[in-house]
């Protein structure tokens, strides 16, 4: 188990190195001089020169690279121009918000996604199955921000049940958190619900055809045990593999959802950084978020090994 973990960790190292190189290199590709566009239209040449010096853009490429990686090793990714705060802390401060929202959306995804898929598989080709798959198709086709806008129009502007946006931390007021997070979490989850329902259905259909399920049925085991213990437990293995993908999709989706609902998470931080030409923030934020996702995926991989002994004891 530990050996497997170390092997996977070693596999993630080159990916992390390349991710950092891409994040760094991307910002050097900006045509012309970013300090001019940061300073704005009314900037004097002195102001531009000052920003250039602050960002280290007056140095040769290699010096910049060494500086950046040197800082990276100490957890220093530079300073955000817009916030005047260190990029590292600005990002870390907002992690709990995005994580809370993603967990909420993930719970919705797992409950409704797996539920829909299992029900559809148990009633294959019936109207229940068709309705479930139509729902899943709708899920993967409705853009999350459109759904969010519709929710705002219906439940916030129309009925006035929920606030149009804003955020209250869970630790401060759980009910307030629930009220501000429900519309964003549901809009964020829908795509993943659709995906998971489709994957669950096809995996379940495959598992339900296996001999051991037929045996379990033949020996008169109650239906819920056959489905829950024999079929679903085995279907969970392929389903777990896509949980890593689901988490990446949730973070990707949170960019637009957080901006739409004015939730101060990582997604909103990066969107405003891009719109405000805060290049150090964009560069550092990209690296931090992606780095964290690589580690989360590593964790999911390990979970997969815990669930499936064939992987643990195999090669």
């Amino acid at each position, binding site marked *: 188990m530990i050996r497997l973990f170390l092997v996977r960790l070693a596999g993630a190292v080159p990916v992390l190195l390349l991710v950092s190189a891409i994040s760094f290199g991307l910002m050097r590709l900006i045509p012309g001089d970013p300090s001019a566009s940061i300073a704005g239209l009314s900037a004097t040449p002195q102001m531009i020169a000052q920003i250039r010096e602050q960002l280290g853009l007056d140095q040769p490429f290699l010096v910049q690279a060494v500086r950046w990686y040197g800082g990276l090793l100490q957890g220093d990714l530079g300073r955000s121009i817009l916030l005047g705060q260190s990029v590292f802390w600005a990002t870390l401060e907002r992690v709990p918000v995005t994580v809370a929202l993603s967990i909420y959306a993930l719970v919705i995804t797992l409950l409704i996604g797996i539920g829909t898929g299992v029900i559809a598989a148990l009633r294959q080709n019936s109207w229940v199955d068709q309705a479930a798959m139509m729902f899943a198709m709708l899920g*993967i086709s409705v853009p999350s921000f459109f759904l969010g806008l519709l929710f705002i129009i219906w439940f916030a502007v129309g009925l006035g049940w929920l606030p149009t946006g804003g955020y209250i931390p869970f630790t401060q007021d759980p009910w307030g958190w629930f009220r501000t997070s429900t519309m964003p979490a549901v809009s964020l989850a829908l795509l993943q619900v659709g995906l998971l329902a489709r994957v669950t259905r096809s995996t379940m259909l495959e598992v339900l055809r296996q001999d051991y399920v037929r045996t379990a049925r033949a020996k008169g085991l109650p239906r819920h045990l056959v489905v829950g213990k024999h079929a679903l437990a085995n279907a969970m293995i392929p389903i777990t593999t896509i949980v890593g993908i689901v988490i990446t999709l949730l973070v990707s989706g949170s960019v637009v959802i957080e901006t739409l609902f004015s939730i101060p998470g990582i997604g909103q931080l990066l969107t405003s950084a891009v719109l405000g030409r805060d290049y150090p923030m964009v560069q550092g934020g990209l690296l931090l978020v992606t780095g964290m996702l690589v580690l989360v995926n590593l964790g999911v991989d390990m979970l997969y090994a815990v669930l499936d002994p064939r992987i643990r004891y195999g090669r």
Partner: protein
Amino acid sequence: MADSPGRATLRRLLRHRLFLTGLVLFGIILAFAAFAPWITTADPIKLGMRTKFRPPGSDFIFGTDNLGRSLWSRMVWGARLSVEIGVMVVALNAVFGTIVGAVSGYFPRLDGAIMRVNDALMAFPAILLAIGVTAVLGPSTENMILALAVVYIPRTARIVRASVLVLRETEFVQAAVAAGASHWRILRTHVLPNAVAPLIVQLSFLFAYAVLTEATLSFLGLGAVPPTPTWGNIMAEGRQYMREAPWIITMPGVLLMITVMGLNLLGDGLRDVLDPRLRVQP
């Protein structure tokens, strides 16, 4: 008369109900895009101070926005832009995804390095990477196409590579190697034609992702610059007028949904018919 395999596939597709539904839905959008200049009378960027906030109805079939512009015109021209971007991204993916995937799958020595770069690019959340690239290049239609290509080519390459890896070990390829065929000839005549089916399936889903991601980015203000109408920026402008004029948001949103659903259905149908082994993959 004997049936050619191509015609048999086509007939199976035309009997696939979901595929046909997708074809109709996407066909509507394609028709909008193709006939935009002929089916709109109002100028999509011309302001009309006396026609602000007209609800959908007689004068303006889909209503007008906060600046009195015809939403129908703006949506149809937006459809043209979305389709253009989708087509370009799909074309770039078809070419570069195939090249990268084929080289990686066929030449084991290059595989490791290419796939590491691929993994790194795929580790970034799609929207974040696209945002990063547009931040660097600046907002415009061409840069949007480029950003989407950078995001999606690694995913396409991975699928082509997977087919090539399998095909490389097949007996007919081994036979071609033994017969002394060149690598180029083997790839072109034996490997790639057999890798086309999963590629086509991937490209139809990719078209949907490209349109969706473009709309998302232009909703965030990172797409084509207003007043050029895109579905995303029409919806972004509508946000301030949700109370008075919700149709500014719902109309383009529904079109976007129809496009994505049509393409998803097309992709599902193509997968069922061309490559039944593939399962649902995000």
